[in-house]
């Protein structure tokens, strides 16, 4: 359980575009341990997807440039690895589920063939054997195998997402990155998909990185959480540390802004303002302009510090200073 399978160290990524340099990811470090689900939570533009694409070696270069850091998987730095090695990883040892099930499938290939394609690519098996394995994958995600030879347009959103999960898990990866896997789905279908992902994780022991903006999904699925804001991790810890002993004002703000924690008619507590422009990020705390606890002391660059038991916070006056389990 405690073996580290992926380690991201001081990763910084920027996009060099006409408007300037967009600093999408700034000095992000985290580990993923075997068998755990790590949640990356944050709002639009926080850099969550860029982190995922870096791990997959799928950053669009150019305009993306990795300015520092390394991503270690089985001792190998993914960022400097050659394309041939990456191909043996992607879809085989590290898989990714993309946000939009409507556009992630090839519309002119049978869904079953899209699964066996991955199997054939990474395993020395015959076509018949691959088809058999693909049919098993379909059944594993709750789709009858007689739908192997159908096109994606015949499937609903939830079914497509099941197919995508089947493709991602076809080669038994040991790390699965799910980027907003249920955001495009209705709640009752979301509940089905989350249930399925949990079952498969238990059955296969896959480690997961789950990217979402939905704190409810995080609460249900994750062991540990990293809160991302303006390309930085502002808080990281176990689910309990982050949800019950929230230390960063931004994390607190996210919880407070959620409706439904009180009676109707009560005013919500939004976080004032909006996220800083990523082409000109401030040097000091990036959340300071929106923070209700801002003081003069915030005008310096702030490091991520351990406030106890591995609960990391990037704030000089965290909301709950005593380390709690």
């Amino acid at each position, binding site marked *: 359980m405690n073996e580290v399978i992926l380690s991201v160290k001081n990763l910084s990524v920027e996009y060099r575009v006409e408007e300037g340099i967009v600093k999408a990811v700034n000095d992000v470090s985290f580990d993923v341990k075997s068998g755990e689900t790590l949640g990356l939570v944050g*709002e*639009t533009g926080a850099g969550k997807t860029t982190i995922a694409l870096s791990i997959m070696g799928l950053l669009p270069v150019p305009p993306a440039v990795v300015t520092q850091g390394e991503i270690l998987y089985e001792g190998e730095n993914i960022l400097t690895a050659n394309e041939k090695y990456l191909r043996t990883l992607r879809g085989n040892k590290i898989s990714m589920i993309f946000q939009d099930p409507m556009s992630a499938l090839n519309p002119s290939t049978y869904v079953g063939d899209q699964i066996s394609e991955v199997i054939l690519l990474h395993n020395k098996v015959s076509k018949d054997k691959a088809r058999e394995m693909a049919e098993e994958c379909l059944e594993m995600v709750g789709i009858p195998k007689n739908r192997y030879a159908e096109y994606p347009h015949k499937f*609903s*959103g*939830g*079914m497509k997402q099941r197919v995508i999960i089947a493709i991602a898990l076809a080669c038994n990866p040991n790390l699965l990155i799910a980027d907003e896997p249920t955001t495009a789905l*209705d*709640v*009752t*279908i*979301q*509940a*089905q998909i*989350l*249930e399925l992902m949990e079952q498969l994780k238990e059955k296969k022991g896959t480690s997961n990185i789950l990217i979402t*903006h*939905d*704190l*409810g*999904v995080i*609460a*249900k699925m994750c062991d540990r959480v990293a809160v991302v804001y303006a390309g930085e991790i502002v808080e990281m810890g176990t*689910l*309990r540390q982050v*949800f*019950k002993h929230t230390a960063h004002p931004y994390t607190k*703000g*996210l*919880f407070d*802004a*959620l*409706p*439904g924690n*009180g*009676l*109707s*008619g*009560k*005013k*919500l*507590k*939004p*976080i*004032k303002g*909006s996220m800083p422009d990523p082409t000109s990020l401030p040097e000091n705390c990036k959340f300071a302009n929106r923070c209700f606890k801002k003081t003069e002391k915030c005008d310096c660059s702030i490091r991520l510090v351990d406030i106890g038991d591995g609960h990391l916070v990037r704030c000089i006056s965290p909301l709950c200073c005593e380390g709690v389990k």
Partner: protein
Amino acid sequence: MSTILTVENLKKYFDVPDGKLHAVDDISFSINEGETFGIVGESGCGKSTLGRTIIHLYQPTSGKIIFENKDITFATKKECRDLLRRMQFIFQDPYSSLNPRMTVIDIIMEPLLIDGMKRKDARQRASELMEMVGLSKAFETSYPHELDGGRRQRIGIARALALEPKFIICDEPVSALDVSIQAQILNLMLDLQEKFKLTYIFITHDLSVVKHISDRVMVMYLGKTVELAGTQELFNNPVHPYTKALLSAVPSTDIDEQQEREILHGEIASPINPMPGCRFAPRCKYATSKCRTDDPHLVELKPGHFVSCHNINS
């Protein structure tokens, strides 16, 4: 409290190659002045079509829409234009509902100019509206693409308020926004409601939002009303099996709360030429043979709490 809008047996069918798509199928309800009426349901349940039919973006197939004691079901073009002075619409997507070639101030002025206001006065009024929705003067000459989602939605709100309507239909106004921005916009909408005594229809798939903002909530499934009740009543004592499943499907942020989850199997059926009987029957674990043949009707279980289910007594 007087009734501002009454909808009776409203139907909206679309002609599609395979037959008729029953988007809104025999819906009735009425809304009191000053209240917020929430409509929830999953994609394809007909909630947006219902909103658009009420404001005549679609022609109703049959039924009755009575607004401020006037039957507007088959209003003429001229009448529809007059109607827009009283009733307005806020769209879901602040990215595609604003003309990308117009500046912010022009977008907000447009309804005023169409209504016949002089350009100079319209400009003055549009500036006031911008201030009212919290948009700084600096954005007057900006184009929509230069603004973030929250500010764009503020433009949509300012435009909807331009003609001082009494009644606004909001179709997923915060669904495209991040939570911190979503809270800003919801607060703004609550402020404006208080200030101008607005009545809202609030269409959304997000149960926590609807719970927060609505006085009464109607749950839709495949073009039909399955349950309608006061917000507290609906969330505390849901009766219809679909409502129960829907409420339990929302993951809670309280990690200590033991959630009883009812996972629905199967998926929403096609609204094209639907089979007789309860629309929810194929996914309902309590369904009997009667459910598959007879349409259930909306019955009043307690004062103000309506349910459409054959098995409510068991």
